[in-house]
């Protein structure tokens, strides 16, 4: 491992975990069904228990317990990485995250740190139904003391790929707890290489953790799209089709740090385009897009001429493929919404 560049998001995350285990003897992985040959429900930890048998702990089905235990481990100097098998189960860990792990540093007046990293796959489109398909990170955005990250499927100039690099950095350098939001379909995405991006301009803002993409040599963008995670893949496809099929040019803004957040690159983009569409796979009301829109309106005032949000419908996510597709925002929905706005 380590010689070849990762091909997919899954490879990249696996490499990131592997490198963290190699470089940091304090890193310990905990979660359900992590051991080889299974290697985790979505295979992110494949091979790791064979390479590091005493550093990968398979656990009972006790999400609250293992998260709380990770908090105790972190208070005593370890760097635990917890896998929650399905993102839906973050409800089970909420007390441990919100009332314990995220509070330790500030309630102990800075005298303790709890660098727990919790990884979990959100997202639908796999037919897993109401309790295994949701995108629930919005409930954890805005929790004081908690960082929320979501990787972008880019190779970037990181030998681990951007997703694995983001994960590795968070495990090794974060003093605060991190919720690392993955996505089931994103795992399978091929990392975008320079060859894949030959038609695009890519700007990277490291300090605010934003990527900006637009068609190369295109006319001025008319609208800003903001999204993250797997939806960034769908939005990029929409951006491409809008340019070629409708001559509507967009800028796509993709943050990888959702909280605490800094939106300057987004404000700069909207200052150019005057329009903002946020896209998220979580439900519509009171979500990430609402906050981003509010902040943009506060920052730009009348400079924000038009703003809309696209998100999942507010109901359970059905198993039936056509019902599930109707519930979650897709490429055609993004295109339709942009065409309404421009």
């Amino acid at each position: 491992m380590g010689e070849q560049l990762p091909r997919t998001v899954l490879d990249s995350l696996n490499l990131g975990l592997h490198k963290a285990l190699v470089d940091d003897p304090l890193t310990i992985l905990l979660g359900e069904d992590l051991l080889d040959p299974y290697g985790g429900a979505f295979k992110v930890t494949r091979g790791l228990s064979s390479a590091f048998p005493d550093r990968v702990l398979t656990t009972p089905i006790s999400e609250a317990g293992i998260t709380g235990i990770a908090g105790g481990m972190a208070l005593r100097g370890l760097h635990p990485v917890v896998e929650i098998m399905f993102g839906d189960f973050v409800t089970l860990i909420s007390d441990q995250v919100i009332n314990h792990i995220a509070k330790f540093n500030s309630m102990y007046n800075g005298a303790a740190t709890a660098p727990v990293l919790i990884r979990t796959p959100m997202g639908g489109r796999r037919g897993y139904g109401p309790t295994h398909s949701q995108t629930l990170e919005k409930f954890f955005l805005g929790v004081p003391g908690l960082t929320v990250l979501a990787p972008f499927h880019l190779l970037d100039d990181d030998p681990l790929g951007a997703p694995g690099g983001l994960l590795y950095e968070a495990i090794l350098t974060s003093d605060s707890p991190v919720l690392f939001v993955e996505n089931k379909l994103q795992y399978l995405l091929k990392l975008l290489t320079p060859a894949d991006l030959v038609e695009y301009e890519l700007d990277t803002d490291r300090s605010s953790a934003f990527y900006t993409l637009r068609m190369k040599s295109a006319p001025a963008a008319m609208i800003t799209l903001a999204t993250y995670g797997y939806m960034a893949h769908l939005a990029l496809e929409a951006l491409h089709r809008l340019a070629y099929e409708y001559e509507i040019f967009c800028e796509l803004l993709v943050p990888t740090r959702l909280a605490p957040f800094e939106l300057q690159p987004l404000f700069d983009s909207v200052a150019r385009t005057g329009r903002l569409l946020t896209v998220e796979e979580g439900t519509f009301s009171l979500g990430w897009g609402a906050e981003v829109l509010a902040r943009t309106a506060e920052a730009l005032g009348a400079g924000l001429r038009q703003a809309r949000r696209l998100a999942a419908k507010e109901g359970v996510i059905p198993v039936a493929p056509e019902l599930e597709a109707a519930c979650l925002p897709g490429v055609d929905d993004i295109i339709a919404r942009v065409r309404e706005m421009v």
Partner: protein
Amino acid sequence: MHTDMELFRRLYRIRRFETVLLDHFKSGIFPGTTHASLGQEANAVGVLAHLQEGDVVVSNHRSHGHFLAYGGDPQALFAELMGKPSGVCGGVGGSQHLHWRNFYSSGVQGGTVAMAAGMALAEKRAGNGAIVVDFMGDGTLGEGIVYECLNMISLWQLPVLIVLEHNHIAQTTPAKLTIAGSVSQRFETFGIPTAELDSSDILEIFPLAGTLISQVRVESAPRALIIHTERLGAHSKGDDTRPPEELVNLWQFRDPIAIHATRLPEAERARIVDEVDADIQRAFEAALGAKGGV
């Protein structure tokens, strides 16, 4: 050395701290709420007298006795409860959220057992022989995460002594309305050897705790100690709904300070009381005189 006099001093120090705290609560110098350790002093002293350098203590909402028995500074604790920058946690944590050296407390029931388990896992991996002592109350037995953690504590043979201070009352609700079946079996069923004691006597608690802590340390494995105890004060400030005659009875027969005081020569006892009273008064006044707070 844990002489009778030294143990009395430690017990009475907690008692005096809590008494001064409660006496001044109405004056408004302490914001929020507090949970006093009255009646449970011998648990804190009897268990924590066996700690060694590097050991870790996890406590709960009723933590003052544990903190003081661990060696915490009464002035810093008073200041914390007054919300002063000179407090244990700068006035941020208050009564229920203390951290000093290897002492940690938190106010949400159940999560402290998880903290203790994770800390014991870290200490076990570090291989330095340190152990974790986790204080919980019978009210906490209602939280599901406790059983998730008891399972992993046993599965991974974590060096933790769980001390269940079973005072048979959760806030205002008697245990008989909330706890089914056997309490000791709740630990034993996970394979955690469990000792049970019905006593407020330091000379009974101290040796049993010593034996168990030694087992946890030598075997690097968990133990549970259930101490049937009595909360002689209210849950927090003034929310005691028990009949007065019940409390009179408890004070007469289950007061750990009174029980142990009889073993000391009167002059020695009076000397210790005077010294502790003066120490606690100095701590209180110094805390009060520091900047900030209400």
